[in-house]
């Protein structure tokens, strides 16, 4: 079975192919594919360069979905979650993940995995898993944990993919050290996270010590190159960073987001936005009862030019809850000044009036 060759319709693979085609069609019409032709072309271009002659068989989709995951179906359709791109510090790290997934595809690991799965899962479940991996949830949230099952490879397959992935990455001009670096970042995030929630990517690619060591060794042995231009990455990602951070807060990834934000801060990007989200995540996290840190983070954000206007709104909300009516009113007024056309300004004006009544 060659990658990209459609299997005969009466075969087992034929049935699964149909399921994958349906899943791809469902993804395309789901409203989740980010409608930015530039962004889509950018990711497709990276995948293409890494896939070489198999580029013609690839279809890539960047979907709006928080969390770190990328998945590739044996029929050549690949999805990359926006949460994954958010967590990459540069294009080389993005290329590392894409290259790794393509390696699984080229080595037909996915197809072997499909065949094993077939014995225990019905087509509807397979469809559900493919959809979930693509970022179009179908069933229970718990299914996301099972998503790892679809991508779970053997140790040998992982080693093969790591090796081939690094090879193609380096050949394309990317620094191979980006691969272990990305994994270190993910592990750090995983350690901060709530252990109950399964990380789909980790269930399929367990970040064992053994793998990390192997990956570091491979990277060290590879030719060190860093010729690929990387400005496009920063240009495109800055367009979306705030939105994608908001998505992570919206799904309650409060602990993970702090790890991501520290890294972005270290890399020197968007300090005002970063401090805002640090404060906002603490504000929204119900388990954090003491909001002092949240207030401090929001105040810190305001020291920077790029702090979004909603920083004042969040500050107002917190101060009001703390009983600092005057401080809250001031913050809300600043919000109204900074965001004159905010669509919730009437609501904020109401909050101000209520606070005036109290004092």
């Amino acid at each position: 079975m060659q990658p990209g060759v459609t299997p005969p319709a009466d075969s087992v693979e034929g049935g699964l192919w149909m399921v994958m085609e349906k899943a791809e069609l469902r993804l395309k019409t789901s409203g989740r594919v980010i409608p930015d032709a530039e962004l889509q072309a950018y990711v497709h271009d990276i995948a293409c360069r890494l896939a070489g002659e198999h580029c013609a068989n690839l279809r890539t989709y960047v979907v709006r979905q928080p969390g770190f995951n990328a998945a590739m179906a044996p029929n050549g359709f690949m999805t990359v979650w926006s949460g994954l791109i958010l967590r990459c510090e540069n294009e080389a790290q993005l290329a590392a993940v894409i290259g790794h997934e393509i390696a699984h595809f080229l080595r037909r690991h996915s197809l072997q995995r499909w065949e094993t799965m077939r014995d225990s899962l019905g087509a509807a479940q397979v469809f559900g898993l493919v959809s979930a991996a693509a970022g179009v949830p179908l069933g229970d949230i718990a299914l996301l944990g099972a998503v790892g099952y679809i991508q779970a490879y053997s140790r040998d397959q992982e080693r093969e993919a790591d090796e081939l992935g690094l090879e193609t990455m380096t050949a394309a001009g990317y620094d191979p050290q980006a691969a272990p670096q990305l994994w270190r970042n993910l592990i750090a995030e995983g350690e901060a996270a709530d252990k109950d929630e399964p990380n789909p990517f980790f269930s399929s690619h367990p970040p064992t010590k053994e793998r990390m060591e192997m990956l570091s060794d491979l990277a060290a042995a590879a030719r060190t190159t860093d010729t690929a231009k990387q400005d496009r990455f920063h240009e495109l990602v800055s367009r979306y960073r705030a939105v994608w951070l908001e998505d992570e807060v919206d799904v309650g990834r409060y602990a993970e987001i702090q790890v991501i934000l520290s890294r972005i801060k270290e890399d020197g990007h968007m300090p005002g936005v970063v401090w805002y989200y640090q404060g906002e995540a603490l504000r929204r996290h119900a388990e954090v009862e003491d909001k002092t840190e949240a207030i401090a983070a929001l105040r810190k954000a305001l020291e920077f030019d790029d702090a979004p206007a909603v920083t004042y709104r969040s500050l107002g909300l917190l101060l009001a809850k703390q009983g600092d009516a005057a401080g809250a009113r001031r913050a809300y007024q600043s919000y109204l000044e900074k965001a004159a056309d905010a669509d919730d300004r009437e609501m904020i004006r109401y909050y101000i009036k209520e606070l005036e009544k109290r004092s």
Partner: protein
Amino acid sequence: MTRALNLIGCFLVVALLAGCTTFVAVSPAKKHEIGNVFRVQPSTLWSAKKDGNVENWTINGFDLEIVSFITKVTEGKAIAPKLQGDDAPTFQADMNATDVVNLYEAVLTARKFSQVEVRNLRPHTISGKDGFRFEYSGFDANGLAKRGMVVGLIDSENGLNLVIYEAAAEHYYDASREAAENVFDSLEKI
């Protein structure tokens, strides 16, 4: 065997349902009390189904248009606990409208909505009491575009109470909008 059990399960549900009609008529001629919180008088006939503290109305079917009354979400409760599960964000007594918007967005996420946008959060009065109102849009779990509007009222006795109109963006939101607006306009607090 799972398939057989699934079908048997269906059979039982069917048997239960067939015993009674699930939907009741809500006639425009009179006022209706909902959850002991709201009184409402629709301008046209609706079909209604109750489920605990939620009452859902429709004309053509829930996936096409729905008016949902969710009452008495008190401190520590989630808006849609069965759907959202144990980790769901819950209503707290010191929450305001902006906080409720975040709670509602979490419900939409649990319903597998994507591209959710909330607009125009503003004050809204019901029986002289201060409430709030906002609109939203998104794609549902099947990729069907949906639009909605929400009216909310928080009070110390009943906690959070919401009235939601949601419909398919293609045709239904506009077609049933007048009927829904009339329901909203007639809202009274008991």
